[in-house]
């Protein structure tokens, strides 16, 4: 009994370590990627290829004074960055990296991840409200409408996948997609759904992930050319650092979910490649998705708030509902 408990604790610590490491080094990857896109070197001074940049940045941020603006709500002001980082890290506990590597599998894993994802939106509201800054306030109002608008199509799309798999267990969903690339949920011909519109569902889910994580082109919460820095205008020191890392942890979670729900998790794309460990395939898919995130961010300008809401309410929600109904019908027929 105590051994299993120890195992769980070690696994959880490893999961959290993975999340924190990713959050720190994705900042580096993003800066290098942006530099590559913009034909400049990027951070390359500290350590080989600038690899020491994230820890040094962390030290610098921690050494700075945490200033709390006068009139700010102190409790919420301090709680907000913690709330940004904590749900993202907690979600890692239930993510399966391969059929054996998972900290704690749950049969309602999806539910837990979405519950924590909703908490992320709360941190933006707390930060914006407690800062006593008009820009931060406007940003948090935007963040709420954005979170509401994009969680709905995201959940509907997820329900489509859950219906196909017949389970909310992430392991089970991945097992259902084993075989080859054609069995993945994104290519539904040999899978369970027979729904040729699944690639569209994948795109909807991916778009919602972009919006949920406040990434460009949907980074209206921190639109730096309008709202200075949005909800974290008043944050310095590690408060800012936590927001920053929380954003990247959320990206990793979003990409993990996309990989699990649509890209077959740890399954190899072709059957004869399955001698390579599953965790390799999982990480490969994960980092390809993250690279796409970075690529999109440095290519597109920002949308407007009404463009963003129109996209969700008028296009994504009807489409995802339609796909849900179609999938339900097809499952009944086949």
């Amino acid at each position: 009994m105590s051994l299993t408990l120890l195992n769980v604790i070690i696994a959880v610590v490893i999961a959290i370590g993975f999340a924190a490491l990713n959050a720190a080094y994705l900042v580096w990857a993003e800066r290098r990627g942006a530099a590559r896109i913009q034909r400049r070197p990027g951070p390359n001074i500290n350590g080989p290829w600038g690899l020491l940049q994230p820890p040094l940045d962390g030290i610098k941020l921690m050494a700075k004074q945490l200033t709390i603006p006068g009139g700010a709500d102190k409790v919420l002001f301090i709680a907000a960055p913690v709330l940004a980082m904590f749900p993202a890290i907690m979600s890692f506990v239930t993510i399966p990296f391969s059929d054996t590597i998972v900290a704690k599998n749950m049969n309602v894993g999806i539910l837990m991840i979405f519950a924590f994802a909703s908490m992320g939106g709360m941190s933006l509201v707390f930060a914006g409200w407690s800062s006593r800054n008009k820009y931060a306030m406007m940003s948090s109002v935007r963040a709420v409408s954005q979170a509401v608008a994009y969680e709905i199509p995201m959940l509907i799309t997820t329900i489509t996948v859950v219906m196909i798999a017949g389970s909310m267990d992430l392991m089970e969903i991945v097992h259902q997609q084993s075989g080859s690339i054609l069995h993945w949920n994104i290519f539904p011909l040999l899978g369970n759904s027979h729904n040729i519109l699944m690639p569209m569902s994948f795109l909807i889910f991916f778009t919602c992930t972009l919006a949920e994580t406040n990434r460009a082109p949907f980074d209206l919460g921190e639109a730096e050319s309008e709202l200075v820095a949005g909800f974290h205008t008043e944050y310095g020191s590690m408060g800012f650092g936590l927001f920053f890392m929380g954003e990247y942890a959320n990206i990793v979670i979003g990409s993990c979910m996309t990989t699990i729900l649509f890209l077959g998790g740890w399954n190899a794309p072709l059957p004869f490649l399955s001698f390579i460990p599953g965790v390799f395939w999982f990480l490969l898919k994960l980092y390809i998705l993250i690279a796409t995130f970075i690529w999109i961010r440095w290519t597109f300008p920002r949308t407007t708030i009404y463009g963003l809401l129109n996209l969700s309410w008028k296009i994504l929600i009807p489409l995802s509902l339609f796909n849900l109904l179609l999938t339900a019908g097809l499952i009944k027929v086949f």
Partner: protein
Amino acid sequence: MNSPIELQPDETFILNVGPQHPATHGVLRVKMEMNGEYIVNAETVIGYIHRMHEKMGEVKTYPQFLMNLSRMDYLGALGYSHGHVLLVEKASGIEVPERAEYIRAIMVELNRVSSHLFWFGAFVMDLGGFSPLMYALQDREHILDMLEGVTGSRLTYCYFRFGGVYNDVDDEFISAARRFIPRMRKSLKKYHKLVTGNIIFRKRLEGIAPLTPEMCRKYGASSAVARGSGINFDVRKNEPYSVYPEFDFDVPVFHECDSLARYNVRMEEMEQSLRIIEQGLDKLPDGPFMPEKKPKLIKPPAGDYYQAVETARGSFGIRLVSEGDKTPYRLKLRSPTYSNMHLFDEACRGMMIMDALAFMGSLDLVIPEIDR
């Protein structure tokens, strides 16, 4: 999207944008009365970087004032110097050798391209796209290197002299300029592919901030602001000066009146400037670059003189009232951005803040030039 909304007087709050705000590109302050994300009223507050250039014009002698002009607009500095030297030459009757005129035109057009490139990058950055700025700056770097080689400085040039230029162009500059033109054309094609065709970019600009031609006339707007609203006015064509009548170039005019039209005008202007540079390099005559005989002390006879030039920001007017002294009695600088900016107060009412700041980007404001 931007239909005016019913306003209750007690539902508004004041948002102070600037003087240090990422979108105002300098120290412009806009006091906005907001209703949620909608702007009810906006008031631009200027003067944070006022340096008394006009007063300096009155106390400094004519040659001493040469360097002040390039401190007005640090992005397209040569256009302003051009206006000043043309005015003083006209006032005191100094003959300018033809080679000097051509060199000036080439330099001013190169500077215009560099200024528009910077605007292009900063404008797309206002809309949230960061990478085009880096591409634009890299192209601009070629121009700055070329100008540095001849004029000795990169931004605040003091290159034009009364009667000519300070330094002759060498073969190195000419070959560099010839190499630059096809490269710049290729870059422009790339920008159109990367930015102009982007769906988000177009959606954010099409139909946003319509400026009627009447409004442009009322505020005295010029440059792309007026030409994007269908007003065909370019000082180079309408009140030709220097050697511009010798060049074959078009004035791009768009009639859509929106932010995208203003963007299109500037992008097209870059191409036209390249055409002028090309022709200027072909026609560049041999000869002196400073006049043979020039008065040692510049003392324009008493009178009232005016000269307008088309700078990168629009029509720049400079008026000189001389009493025959070493220094002018009055030197009035009519800066184009000043007029363009004041459109903002009226035009942004009822707009959302993000559209308003995109609109502000399309006006191409350079704050030191407003405040002078």
